């Protein structure tokens, strides 16, 4: 695979999949904190 293809793949997957996982982790932690406060 060419260097540019590899760089593009890492950047695109990083933003989309990495972004998705990061936002999901943040949402889960915020939600857990809200639930703890409720309890």
């Amino acid at each position, binding site marked *: *695979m*060419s260097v*540019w*293809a*590899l760089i*593009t*793949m890492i950047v*695109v*997957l990083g*933003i*989309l*999949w990495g*972004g*998705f996982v990061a*936002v*999901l982790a*943040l*949402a889960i932690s*915020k*939600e857990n904190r*809200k639930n703890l406060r409720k309890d």
Partner: protein
Amino acid sequence: MVNIERFSSRWGLVISVIGIAVGTGNIWRFPRIAATNGGGSFLIPWIIFLFLWSIPLMIAEFGIGKSTRYGPVGSFATLLGKRFAWMGVFVAFVATAIMFYYSVVAGWCLRYLMMTLTSQLFQVDNHTEDWATFIGSGWQPAFFHFTAITIGALIIRKGVVHGIERANRFLIPSLLLLIIISAVRAVTLPGAYEGLQFLFTPEFSNLLDYRVWLQALTQNAWDTGAGWGLILTYAVYMREKEDVPLNAALIGLGNNSVSLLAAITIFCTVFALVPEQAGEILQTPGPANTGLTFIWIPQLFYQMPGGAFFATFFFLALTFAALSSLISMLELATRVFMDMKMSRSKALSLVYVGTLVLGLPSALSVDFFLNQDWTWGIALMVSGAFIAIAVTRYGAERFRSQQINSEGSDIHVGHWYNYLVQYAIPLQVVVLITWWFYQVIQADPRGWWNPFLPESVGTCILQWGVVILVFLFFNKIIADRTLGR
């Protein structure tokens, strides 16, 4: 206002809204558009417009639905005043008009799923002929359209928690699992690496081509569900102290991640199995833009070890994606009538019968289908503009501070949002509509104005004009029935 059902949890809402966003467009349109617009160089503007178009509009829809607790018609009348209810009716009508023919598309997916389950798919000699026979038969697309809309109606009938949420809790994780398994299988095929190379290699000269940027924007406008009024409808059922911006980001990123997984699966499969024909297969739209899905995919799976198994996976995923989007369109139309004080069962019966009847022309005629796809696909941009206008007239700053950064919000949205919704989104709409119309005028300088051609500027102006005039005429009656006198 009567008591409105609520999603049982944040995850019930998120999964249901991902169900809106992930549809057939992710699986059959995205790979073709990415292939014809330079692969890697298309992905860059496509990600940029996720943040400039899709996520800001999703945030707007969440905020509007959550604050007004009305579907599109009541929302616009509440935010802008009763005089502007017609704008909400237009947004609702566009999504409903799309539902009429989307149910036909869901029916096509069901037909191919049935063929894989009964092992008939691989007995077909000529898939182009088989597709033509199926579409030309009339009764078959009509039958599967009836089946798809009936399944959707049976889900919606049970309400939000027991219908929409429960269905999506099954459909979406299953869909993700099916796509992930298919993608893993595809990238492990010998020669699949060429597919990844084609998908991710950027041709930097393409980034200077405005058409690549406009195609990237169009793809975001059509396949994320932002600006359709569907997210606004589900937001009606959000819990009181629910987050808006983080959920919107999660759904936008999730939707585009699924598109990318689908593209990886298809590119790797095509390059591994028929490398010499890969360009033609990926870039040729075929009849009703379905060439890749219904003509090539069966032939590709036929050549693959364990192909029957993976073909079933693929068409099951496609059917789940279609159904999860279809039920959101059904719910939008049903919500509009429920806001007019109708019971769910009565409103749903009306929408169900209406869809059965008004979807029939698209099931029976490909030309009619293409006309509706063109007319209301472009009208979606107008819907997006109307939502941005609603926020702007309400006051972007007031909307941001009261409806987005409200109690329960997990992150703070800054002033940048005001600029995006006030200027960037309307500008994108104007540029997109101008470009699409310009393309039609270039392609057919003599017939572009003719309203009786399937894809013309004339047909858009005529159909949009008629529905807007009708909605303006009945504006007061509709607004009064929704909000009360």
